[in-house]
């Protein structure tokens, strides 16, 4: 009976916490340049505005999507032309359909390529692996409704665009948090959006089942470090919008990169000594960071984080 109660509590607590987080309004905060941060929608959302229109990075959970659109409309009455997804998780893509329908794609006589939904909504860009995660082969029911799927994907290392007088890059980070992660780099505003590769709220989510790995995660963190240049006295300069948490800069990311690398090194040393996953978990190798970064549950929890690193590093049998 106690076990059942504990299980119910374990399931209900995160839901209750999320519900509490989602009960408020979506708040907008200027980051710098053309870029704003929307909070309160289940995950961070970046919005770039300008004369040409609106570009949105991630869309939060489905339940908050109307409020997200309303918050965007307070920033700009220009058309939402692009939605960029950093990855496939539903707390970042749940509002895709609503935000897409609130926008539009300009078309003309010479349009070529795959623009099936042109004219009836914004385009949704993501790495091709995001589309694979959200869709399904013909005849199989997809887990995500068609309207939320990316309308345009990229396969190579990066996709570049120029919007609102600003170069914007989607840079693929292979096998990091999952297999479809993109960094979004606003080169003129000097803002990087990281998705769940970096968060100020917990350990990183390394989803091994969806193609994530510890080395890919560390590579991605180092890639962000190389994009970010701090300003006066090692502060501000390039701003970094994490998947969850506050607007950060290079020193914040550096502390996080150090933490992930140090814990990786400890677990690698334990594996080299022949320790099992249970022994590694019992060794308390994340104790110096747990009070700061361990989430109560989910992939950001210390135990799950250690498990993901171990599975990522241990020799495959």
């Amino acid at each position: 009976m106690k076990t059942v109660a504990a299980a119910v509590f374990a399931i209900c607590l995160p839901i209750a916490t999320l519900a509490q987080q989602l009960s408020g309004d979506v708040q907008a905060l200027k980051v710098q340049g053309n870029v704003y941060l929307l909070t309160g929608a289940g995950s961070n959302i970046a919005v770039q505005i300008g004369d040409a229109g609106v570009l949105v990075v991630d869309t939060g959970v489905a339940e908050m999507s109307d409020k997200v659109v309303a918050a965007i409309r307070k920033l700009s009455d220009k058309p939402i032309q692009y939605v960029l997804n950093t990855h496939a998780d539903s707390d970042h893509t749940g509002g895709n359909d609503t935000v897409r329908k609130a926008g539009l794609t300009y078309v003309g006589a010479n349009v070529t390529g795959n623009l099936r939904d042109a004219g009836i909504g914004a385009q949704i860009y993501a790495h091709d692996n995001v589309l694979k995660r959200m869709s399904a082969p013909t005849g199989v029911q997809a887990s995500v409704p068609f309207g939320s799927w990316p309308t345009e994907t990229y396969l190579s290392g990066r996709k570049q665009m120029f919007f609102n007088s600003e170069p914007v890059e989607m840079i693929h980070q292979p096998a990091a948090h999952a297999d479809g992660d993109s960094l979004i780099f606003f080169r003129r505003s000097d803002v990087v959006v990281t998705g769940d590769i970096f968060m100020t709220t917990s350990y990183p989510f390394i989803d091994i089942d969806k193609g994530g790995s510890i080395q890919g995660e560390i590579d991605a963190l180092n890639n962000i470090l190389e994009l970010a240049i701090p300003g006066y006295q090692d502060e501000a300069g390039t701003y970094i919008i994490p998947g969850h948490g506050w607007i950060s800069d290079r020193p914040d990311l550096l502390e996080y990169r150090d933490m992930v690398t140090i814990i990786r090194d400890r677990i690698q040393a334990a594996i080299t000594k022949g320790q099992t996953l249970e022994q590694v978990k019992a060794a308390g190798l994340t104790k110096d960071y747990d009070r700061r970064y361990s989430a109560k549950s989910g992939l950001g929890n210390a135990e799950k984080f250690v498990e993901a690193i171990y599975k990522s590093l241990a020799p495959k049998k």
Partner: protein
Amino acid sequence: MTKLHKKFRRELRGKIFPEETLRCSYRASSLAVFILILAGSAFAQGPGGYNPIGPGVDLAGNWGPVFHEDAHERGPGPELANYVGLPITDGARMYGLAWDASRFTIPEHQCEVHIVSYIYRGPYNLRIWEERDPVSQKLIAIKQYIDNYQQTRTIWMDGRSHPSEAAPHTWMGFSTGKYEGNILTVHTTHLKWGWIRRNGLRHTDQATLTEHFIRHGDHLTHASVLTDPATLSEPLMKTEDLVLRLQNGQTWLYPCEPVVEIVRPRGIVPHYLPGENPFLHEFADLYKIPVEAALGGAETAYPEYQSKLKRTNAK
């Protein structure tokens, strides 16, 4: 309120009203009462008799630190694995023992600034001035320029609230202040990770800081209370003193340019694995104290710990 906090408040009271001052004040009290009666309401209105005295005290000026407290730690620096007297958690201790000073050879770490909760410990010049509304002369902010790392700090005095949780965290944090009598009390949030002691002990970016700036003539006491649930089991309280400087002959600059000191593969982070810090015993052996005392914790901050150590040594 913790024992340490009570002790701190007693010490703080001693700083605001040193015992000699109290004795002098007692002798002079009769004269003071007499003068007050003579002065009447005009005295209460301040010099000139028409300008009411506002709250607080003017802290403006150039101040320099004096090192009669913790000089060894604040000057040359603390020994490695010396955490004595600090109310750190087990996690903070593990972090400190993993820290390798070679981390500062990584270019991204080289220009790291001392956090506001630590910066007053070091050698520096401190300039304080007020920013007032030009029309109403209402106090908007108290500004500080700290030449160590060239930090300009703003302490908002206009009653504004702290920014949202999503706002950036900075080396100086976001500070609001108010006068409590003649003491300026400041509350700071939105901090980055920063030193507890600059031998590897750091507090997290979830720490908050309460400070008191107390002026007695040309002497200024800065007292701080740092709270961080991740790294401190009790609030960490510290004081530093400064004197007013009438001459302005300092450089006031701190340029920093990172360089590659050691060529390494990408992404290397120098650190010690658990149980492999080679300096664990160095400080303890030098001062002939047990390692567990050197490794700190709230218990080591209290006088009772000395008795415990004696009992342990006797065994």
